[in-house]
């Protein structure tokens, strides 16, 4: 349902910010699983996905920082990976000609194959409506035609409530030194000045990947990774599309992935590896929520890193990663 500007309240903004956190979080295990399924860590696909995962983590941090600036600490829940459902994205609202090349796809956890690279492209598909004239605030996140429209609406909504911004509240800052050209990645000011910072974070998210405008595929210098990205100017969609295109028809040339076995053939060790991953990811979600709630969990990063090892360990044993 469309909202008029005067109807827009903090609770609507919180809903939108929580949705942003949900979506950013959803991508991370999905992309990580695809990346760690690739045998050759030196392959271009592996390295490109790695850079995108790093930026998804940054986007999660940005979304949480924005939420905390408005007094809302986001909830972190283990994402659901079922069927073709990707949270808050309704591809039926996109022009069919833009999404057709990326179907069929799956939203279930799996190795880097055609179905999964299609899903990854769809998540990052650019906003084709460059005018953004029709952006309107909605009560339900699913009513946005694209993630680009969602973030533009979020910007409008955030602007309407700029008086509620309080700088320096529960801000997390892990990535600054990877973006030497970026002024700041946290909201330190309140009110209108704080909104300028919020708006900058939205620009960062949209220009790096989600909602990137099709007419300008290059990430502005200010948002480019300066440390460890093999293609710092490339947005997420461009990178995923490159992997898909280089994979050729039916994904025949995608890099080799670890063979998987059916669940029925899992050994006790396999089941244990699956269990370890679920346990560590559950722990990670709790730590993340604590992190964004202003705590300073000592073992946050070790657990986050351990999840990566656990995913890799699953694949190396033929086990498809599970997160819940």
């Amino acid at each position, binding site marked *: 349902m469309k909202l008029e500007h005067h109807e827009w309240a903090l609770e609507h903004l919180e809903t939108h910010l929580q949705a942003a956190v949900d979506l950013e979080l959803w991508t991370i295990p999905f992309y990580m699983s695809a990346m760690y399924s690739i045998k050759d860590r030196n392959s271009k696909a592996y390295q490109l996905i790695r850079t995108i995962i790093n930026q998804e983590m940054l986007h999660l941090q940005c979304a949480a920082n924005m939420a905390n600036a408005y007094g809302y600490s986001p909830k972190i829940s283990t994402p659901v990976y079922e069927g073709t459902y990707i949270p808050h994205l309704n591809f039926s609202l996109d022009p069919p000609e833009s999404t057709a090349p990326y179907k069929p796809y799956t939203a279930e956890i799996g190795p880097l194959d055609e179905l999964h690279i299609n899903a990854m492209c769809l998540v990052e598909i650019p906003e084709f409506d460059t005018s953004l004239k029709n952006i309107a605030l909605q009560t339900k996140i699913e009513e946005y035609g694209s993630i680009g429209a969602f973030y533009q609406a979020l910007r409008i909504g955030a602007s309407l409530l700029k008086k509620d911004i309080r700088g320096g509240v529960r801000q997390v800052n892990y990535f600054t030194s990877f973006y030497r050209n970026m002024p700041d990645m946290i909201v330190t000011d309140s009110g209108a000045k704080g909104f300028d910072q919020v708006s900058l974070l939205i620009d960062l998210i949209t220009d790096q990947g989600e909602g990137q405008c099709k007419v300008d595929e290059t990430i502005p210098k200010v948002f480019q990774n300066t440390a460890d990205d093999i293609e710092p100017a490339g947005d997420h969609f461009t990178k995923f599309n490159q992997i898909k295109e280089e994979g050729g028809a039916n994904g025949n040339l995608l890099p080799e992935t670890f063979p998987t076995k059916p669940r029925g053939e899992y050994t006790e060790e396999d089941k244990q*590896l699956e269990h370890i991953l679920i346990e560590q990811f559950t722990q990670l979600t709790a730590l993340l929520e604590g992190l964004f709630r202003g705590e300073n969990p000592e073992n946050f990063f070790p657990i986050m890193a351990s999840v990566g*090892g*656990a995913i890799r360990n699953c694949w190396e044993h033929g086990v498809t990663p599970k997160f819940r």
Partner: protein
Amino acid sequence: MMNKKTVFRVHPTVNFARFGTSEDYILSPETSAGLPQKGTAVTGGLPIKKGTENTPVTSKDLRDTQGNLKKQAARFRIFAYDADCTSTYPSGDGVEVTLGTKLPDGRVVKDLIWSCHLANKKAAAYNVVNNKGIEAYADGQVPQLRNPEVHGTIDSVYRLNRLMIDPGPRAIRAKPREFADFSRCSQASCVREKGKIEPLPDYPIRFPEDTNDELFEPSGPLDTLGQMLTDDKGRLLVLSASGNAVGQYDEYGVPIQMTGDLNNVGWFDSAADGPVKVTLVFEDDTTEEAFGAWVVCGDPAYAPQIRNVVSVWDDVYNMFVRDLDLQPDLYGEVPGEAEKRYNPHYKPNFTQDIQPVFIACNLQRWTANLPPLALEAHKSVVGISEDDDPNKTIMAALNFIRNPNADETNIGTPLMPLSLGAAGTSFLTVTKTQYFLMEQWSKGHFDKGEVCKLGAGEALDVASMANCLGGRYVPGIEVSYTIMEKDIYIQDWSTSGAGPFRIKHYPLTYDGLKKDTPYLSSGWIPLHDMTDGLQPGDVSKFMAIPWQTDYNSCSIHATAINTDGVNESNGAESTLYWSWPSQRPDAVYVAEEVYNNVLPKQQWSIRGPGTYAVNPASAATFQDPLQSVQDWDKIGIIIQGINVESDTQTYSPELYLEVQSQLTAPGDATDPVPGWPFNANPPKKKRGCPHK
């Protein structure tokens, strides 16, 4: 014990004496850097107080009362072994033999006749080729000669007379506590049959001032390569020279400018290396010669407890395992297979084989500007115990270790080690043996408990080499890539009685000496099927000249420095990484700035006047190479907090802090240390052709 034939071996097989400007000295460490030591909170790697068996130094032992940096003496001991037909490794036995030791066969040691021959062939040798490493010697090729303006071939008398530093051999008796100086003005001597010392008045001693009327001597004359003496038990102590360097003047009377890091024309330094031998004299006047060792005199240890992830020990052990059948149960032939391979049933010991890598990982924070996330991760790595399920740890699937068997040397983050690699590669990898042992641990195939299988002499070999920089020999700190060449070692180590890791001595008889003819030749080079042993100077000649310019410059670099100027890494062209973070400290915590064990901001190890860098790529260095030759001894030393002596506070053993720096005082303005990742200034654009 010793009821069979007894053989005598000197340990450590390769030992390191280190420069110092003081006449006083401490002893090189006999424990391995960073590793826990029984009964104390002090970790391994600290030098030993002079005159003691194994008392670690404190911060007040590092300089003399005038503030001069003390030298580190390399202490050699003799061990007796029962000799079967073949030796295995580790042997686990060996008993130290000193003056007065009575052997089981009744022989009593009356005297020990030690001899050593140090030389420095750097200026007469070939260039170090930065991005080629040892490959510069492949296919029958050799690099360009150093000092090419000095006419002649590599072995010409003209060149060797002018460019080689050779004081000749020296021999001393332990019983009367004799002393010898490898100086220009002392006489050479050697050991003949029955332990008789023979003076060599005709030995062609060579020093730079013999052929240069005047030399630029910023830290005094280069007139000695070191000294040798014995302790009260008859063990040998080899002391290095002061570490000074001298340069020639050009035709305008100006000191020849140093134009690079590795191969400076017209310069000499006082590094050296050479064979160590000992003849045991028994009370019945019979004698027996031990299997000798090798001493290398070089750079100070600025961070002696900060363990290298890959040390010289790791590289030498890896080579002996893979190429010289050190432990066939670990790596060897498999029936029915053409190639040797690692034994999938081999069980490493967690404490001995796995934990040292984890400890090294965590210690890097004390000498490098690691980001907070890395510190958290490393803390988690070092927290892994032998009782942990590897699959539940941060090291599960070795997900963050660069695999030396795969093509991964261009992958930087998030793989470890995140420091620069060997020549031609962007990043460092652990050795194949280190990786295999960790793989076994990762699979749960490992033993628990502290099981030291090494004999006392073998433990000295490990400790000596484990305290030196490995992996990245570009060209290195103590030794270069040649230390991994099997051609330099006694290859029949198992049957000859020599035991492993022993550099083969080129036979030097010291007969037919002529004062005008150099005795030593240019010596051994790699990849040329030369297996008749090394001459004095054949280890250090592959190092930079002078040593200070390389130490100075090898702080932080972009990866392209290793790969022909082209960035092949998965990171930005300008991202900076550490060259030798454990052995050449970059960013440190100054003890005087720590309060209540709260860490201050990091400082560059090399800082203060003359170090301010316009480009972050040259931070933490003396901007003028000449200053590195003059001020290297003012750099501070990083040691464990518990051994920092302070009148006002005590420090936690968890901390490793810089002490005794003479470069700045607390509160002085210095270049700030940014958090990693940080970047060099963008490269200048290449000029296009103006006619196009």
